């Protein structure tokens, strides 16, 4: 009886089309990449259920962070006084009128601050806001 009889079948994976596949992946990632990521502030977002993606491209999104020490950052600008936020957002609005505001606010922030942010955004005519939240929670 012969054990371990090896069949002589050629089992090489064809690699001729590998560069094409890599090219496809490369083009996908090149198109999907947006080189405008601000590190922002460290916030722990609240949870919500009925959340949705921001309609349109990420290129038209301005992010405002508010952390639990009531520090406000708009994209890469540190907003020291709340009344400066209006000017910062207004300038972004002039450069690109279709911007949307992504609000990344810590869940322990008081509504007084959030309302101040609302008022500043209204004065800058930036009315489309998204309250960022992590999926979860129960209804």
């Amino acid at each position: 009886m012969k054990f371990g009889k090896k069949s002589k079948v050629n089992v090489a994976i064809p690699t001729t089309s590998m560069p094409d596949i890599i090219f496809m992946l490369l083009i996908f990632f090149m198109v999907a990449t947006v080189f405008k990521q601000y590190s922002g502030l460290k916030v722990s977002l609240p949870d919500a259920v009925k959340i949705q993606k921001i309609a349109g491209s990420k290129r038209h999104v301005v992010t405002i962070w508010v952390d639990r020490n009531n520090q406000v950052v708009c994209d890469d600008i540190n907003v020291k006084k709340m009344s400066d936020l209006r000017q910062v957002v207004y300038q972004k609005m002039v450069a690109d009128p279709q911007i949307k505001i992504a609000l990344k606010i810590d869940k322990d922030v008081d509504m007084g601050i959030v309302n101040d942010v609302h008022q500043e955004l209204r004065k800058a005519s930036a009315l489309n806001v998204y309250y960022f939240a992590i999926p979860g929670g129960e209804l």
Partner: protein
Amino acid sequence: MLLGKKKEKDVEIPSASLSDIVFLLLIFFLVTTSIDTEKGLDLVLPPPGDTEVKIPKENLANMLVNAQGQVLLDGEIIEINEISRIVREKIQANPNLVISLKTDKETRYEDYVHVLDQLKEAEAKKISIAEPDED
């Protein structure tokens, strides 16, 4: 004299290392890409200026959220997870209902998002964010 004498030289670009270069580029873009999975609750703020829109009393539901996260809807204390059911019933009874959401200065943002989430769940389209009263 021979003009335009062509040299028979091989002028092909070597393409053997092409896949290596593409691989490097691929790895670079793989590392730099951050595919956003973050999502949020959308809301449209009222336009600037104190334009008071008169809403008939019967089309208005007042919702108050206090600093302890308690919710008062038209004078009744309700639980946060009851909001969607109650508001849905109210909207079915009156499709023109506007929900006026008012918060305290010290209300936690988390409670506000939970209330807003409940209103979205109840398919409330007309949500008005009232300014908090000045002390």
